[in-house]
């Protein structure tokens, strides 16, 4: 279950709530890390974290809401599950609009929270996987020579070898050699797949 060293981060000022939640998550087999304030969590390299964040919305000093906004600024894509008291639903809705994954209300049912944590971790894994994939593609694209890149662009636009040869004022045979290099470097045989890869890398 715990692919890629995912950690459930818990930011909660109330020591008992934090301790009990960490115990519960550990019993469930998750790796966890607890923080007593928003500020102490920000000491982490937040952009590099894997897993999800269980965040108390109401804390002295920096609130959960403020921390969430700050994380978005810092490029942290960690899925966030807000934990709210009663009467904080309006706040929770606002948080959702800003991209929080979900929220649970205190005192919560264990199943609700665990399910949400599971969902958030899956989402994170997916996101991270997509990112890694994209990164790989980008590296492949970067390995192309300028001429190969130029020819690949024209291929994606759907130009035949002949059209490319005329356009670049080179022989059709040369185009064919470049073309096979591009396919080789990008690791594919199908033009359709190449198009998809380039679009994904640039999304």
């Amino acid at each position, binding site marked *: 279950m715990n692919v890629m060293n995912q950690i459930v981060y818990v930011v909660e000022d*109330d020591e*008992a*709530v934090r*301790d*009990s*939640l960490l*115990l*519960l998550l550990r*019993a469930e087999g998750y790796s966890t890390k607890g923080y007593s304030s928003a500020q102490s969590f920000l000491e982490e390299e937040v952009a590099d974290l894997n897993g999800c964040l269980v965040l108390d919305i*109401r*804390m*002295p*000093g920096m*609130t959960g809401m403020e921390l969430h906004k700050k994380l978005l600024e810092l490029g942290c894509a960690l899925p966030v599950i807000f934990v709210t*008291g*009663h*009467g904080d639903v309006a706040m929770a809705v606002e948080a959702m609009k800003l991209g929080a994954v979900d929220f649970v209300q*205190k*005192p*919560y*049912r*264990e199943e609700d929270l665990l399910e949400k944590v599971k969902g958030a971790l899956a989402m994170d894994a997916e996101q991270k996987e997509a990112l890694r994939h994209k990164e790989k593609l980008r590296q492949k694209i970067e390995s192309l020579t300028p001429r190969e890149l130029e020819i690949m662009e024209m291929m994606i636009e759907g130009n035949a070898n002949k059209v490319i040869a005329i356009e670049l004022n080179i022989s059709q045979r040369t185009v064919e050699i470049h073309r096979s290099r591009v396919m080789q470097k990008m690791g594919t045989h199908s033009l359709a797949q190449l198009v998809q890869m380039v679009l994904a890398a640039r999304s």
Partner: protein
Amino acid sequence: MATVDNKAVSKLSRQDQILLVDDNPANLKILYETLDGRGYKLLVADSGEKALSIVRKSHPDLILLDVMMPGMDGFEVCRTLKQDPATASSSIIFLSALDDTDSKVMGFDAGGVDYISKPFQVKEVIARVETHLKIHRLEQQLEARNRELQIDKASILSAMSEGIYGLSRRGEIIFANSAAGRMNACDEDSLLGRSFVQLHFSQAENPEGENAFDLDRMTERLQRVLSKNEALRIGNALFTRPDGSVYPVAFTVTPTARDDHATHAVVVFHDTTDEIKQAEELEAARQSAEAQRSQLAHISRLSMMGEMAAGIAHEVNQPLTAIVNYIRVANRIAKAEQLDKALMDETLKKIESQCLRASQVIQHIRDFVKKPLQGKEMLSANTLARDILELAEIEAKEHGIELRANIEPSLPELYIEPVQVQQVALNLLRNGMEAMGHANMRGAVKFKVAQANGKGILFEVTDEGPGVAEEHQNNLFSPFFTTKKSGMGIGLTLCQSIIHSHGGEIGFRPGESGGSTFYFTLPVRNKPVGKRDQPAESAQ
């Protein structure tokens, strides 16, 4: 009281009268001629009997009285005159040929002032007459003056509302004014001759020992006044009346300085029934005001808790959340193939402590809103500050405001109604937080408790809000003044009333860098020892 004696006064201004008494006409003639033309009015009598009748009619200032007369002799005339107060004031000089010491002594014994031997020298007669007339005049003046003083004294004493006794060396009442009679519900003369202590302190009907001055103690105290000249002042005693009834008094017993006086001490006393009644009414009014404030404070606490409901719910929810989590954990531990006993113990302990935490929050709130029946008690300022902070934390979390406490350690104990003082502090703290919340300002509310130099304990709340507009600063503690949309305007007024009832001060000053500082002080004082104050007593 008697009016001024007109006869005595008129006598002072008239021509001096001299009565000459001798059975020998020749002697009478010589005397007459000797004194005639010197401005005296001269009267003559040739026998004792005639002399008596003239004296009774004319009251001469001076009588020259022959001793040897047929019928009534001079000594007898003199004794008769001196025995009758109406005639006793005339001065008498004896005239006699008897020149022996015995007869002179007899003359003085009979009441004469001087003695002239026959045959007399003219100059001697004139000189003695003038001297004795002068003495007589001075005596008359003195007597008149004395009478005036007596009358003045009597009218002053009878006009006084205080009761006054003169006491003899043995503590008997030898003088009582009319106020004394009035207070004792009897004729003042009937008090004369009675022992002051026996009269007022012999009644043993002070069941609760209210009259700390019983017969024995009072006898001893009075003895000290009479023998050692120590004054006695008692502010709170009971006198028994001759009819057996009792009334509360304040009294002083002052020794009179002179030994040759019949009065050895003066008692001044007054009935304190009305004063006591007024004091009781005042106390009743004070208690009723106290009860009303207490009631109002209670209502205000209830409403404050209502306003804090959200925060309180959150405060109870926290341990509940933790408890639910721990229980799930315990469940898992129980279901595991290998029971981790240590972890289970630890988890159960955590559950227990969270249950206690929740119940403490509830207990704290219950204490805060309970009916006002607890009254004042001794409580350390540190405990008080801690209780205040526990409730204030709830509100601070609710407003997302930091609460920064600065409590001096080892503060003394205060004699206070703890809940009411908590209420005042919480009110000020909440005001600060609300002010910051409304202005969407973040920051901290500071709560400081410290010894104020010489003024007891200082409690200070400083916020970082927008501060109090200058035009409102003077109205802060006025009833029904509020700048809040949903306020009644009684919060600070009530705070002031509570703090004043504790003998403290409450006030406001603008913060140094914006914001406001509200503060109050409470005096450090010990719990009064008993309810009833000891009788006020002092010996000077």
